[in-house]
C-alpha cells in the first residue's frame, strides 16, 4: 500500500534538570509505502516553525540559531528505505536531517495491519521511536547548573505516532 500520514504527533523528549523537556511538531507530513514482502519506505518532514512547547519563550528560543535555526533550516526531514514490517513490529534505518546535518538513525516501533476506514480506504497506524545525540546535528546549546552539570541532556528521544491513509 501507498499511504499519506494524517498529521498527528511527532515529538521529542530530552532530560532537563531533574525532569524531561517535551515538545511537538504540529506541521508534519509523511508517506509510507509497504510492499508485498513486508519491506517499504517511510519518509516525512516537520516544519521547525510549528514546534510547540509549554513555554512560548522557550518555543521562540528553539527557533533560533542556538537550537534549530528555523531561518536557515526551516524543515526537519526523514527518509528510510528498506524498512521491515514483521507482524505488528516495524524497524528500519533512515537518514534524519536536522539543521542541515544528515545522519543515519535507527528506529523501531509497532504498526497495525491495514484496516479499511468508512470510505473503504485502508488505514495503518504506527508508533515509532528513535534516539539521537543532539550534538551530532549541531543542536548544542546548554547552560551549566550552579550545583554542577548541565541543564539539558544530550540524548533526545524522538517519538512519532502516525496514522496513514491509503492514497487515492
Amino acid at each position, binding site marked *: 500500500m501507498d499511504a499519506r500520514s494524517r498529521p498527528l504527533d511527532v515529538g521529542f523528549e530530552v532530560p532537563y534538570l531533574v525532569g524531561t523537556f517535551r515538545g511537538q511538531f504540529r506541521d508534519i507530513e509523511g508517506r509510507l509505502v509497504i510492499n508485498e514482502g513486508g519491506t517499504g519506505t517511510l519518509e516525512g518532514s516537520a516544519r521547525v516553525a510549528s514546534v510547540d512547547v509549554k513555554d512560548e519563550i522557550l518555543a*521562540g*528560543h528553539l*527557533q*533560533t*540559531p*542556538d537550537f534549530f535555526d528555523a*531561518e*536557515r533550516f526551516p524543515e526537519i526531514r526523514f527518509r528510510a528505505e528498506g524498512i521491515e514490517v514483521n507482524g505488528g513490529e516495524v524497524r528500519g534505518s533512515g537518514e534524519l536531517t536536522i539543521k542541515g546535518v544528515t545522519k543515519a538513525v535507527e528506529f523501531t516501533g509497532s504498526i497495525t495491519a491495514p484496516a479499511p476506514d468508512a470510505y473503504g480506504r485502508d488505514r495503518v497506524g504506527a508508533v515509532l521511536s528513535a534516539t539521537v545525540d543532539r550534538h551530532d546535528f549541531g543542536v548544542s546549546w546548554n547552560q551549566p547548573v550552579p550545583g554542577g552539570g548541565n541543564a539539558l541532556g544530550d540524548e533526545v528521544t524522538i517519538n512519532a505516532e502516525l496514522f496513514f491513509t491509503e492514497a487515492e
Partner: protein
Amino acid sequence: MRILGVSGSLRRGSYNTRLLEAAAELLPEGVEFEVFDGLKAVPPYDQDDDVEPAPEPVALLRSELAGADAVLFATPEYNSSIPGVLKNAIDWASRPLMTNALRFKPVAVTGASTGAFGAVWAQEELRKVLGALGARVVEGSVPVGHAPTRFDEDGRLVDEEIRAQLADLVTAVLAAVEERSEAATAAPAA
C-alpha cells in the same frame, strides 16, 4: 550593507571603541559602519516603561539595530562579566522577544581588557546572551589582552596579529550577512 558597532565601554578613548574602529577599517568599500553612540542615554530596564512608544533612547537603539545588517560588539570585562550598561541595552533590545531587532541577525563579539585575558569571559557571556535572544552569533572571538600595548597614541591598532584575527571575524560576519540575504532572495515567503 550596513554594520553597527556597539562598544560596552562608554569612556572617551575606550580601547573597545578603538577596536571597533580598527575593525571598521577592514570592511570592504561600500559597507557602511557606525559606532552606536546612544548607549549611555538608555535608561535602566523597567517593564513598566517597556510600552509603546518606547523611551526615545530605546527607540533609537532599536531602530539602529533594526537598520543594520549585522552588529559588531566590543566588550570590556567588569568583574568577570559584561558591563551592566551593555547588558541593560541588550535587555531593552531583546523586547519583544519574538520580533526583536537582533533575532536571526548576524552578530560578532570581540573585546579588550588591560589585563592578560582580553575579556574572554565577558565575550563568552555576551555570546550566550546574544544567542538567548535569537541572534546568529558567528563563530570566533578576538580577545585583546594588555590593551594599552596594542594601540598607539592616536588610538590606532598597531598589533598585526590582532588585526588579522579581526579581519577573520569581519569576514565571518559579512559571509553570514550574504548567506542571509541570498536565502531571503531565494525564498521570500519563508
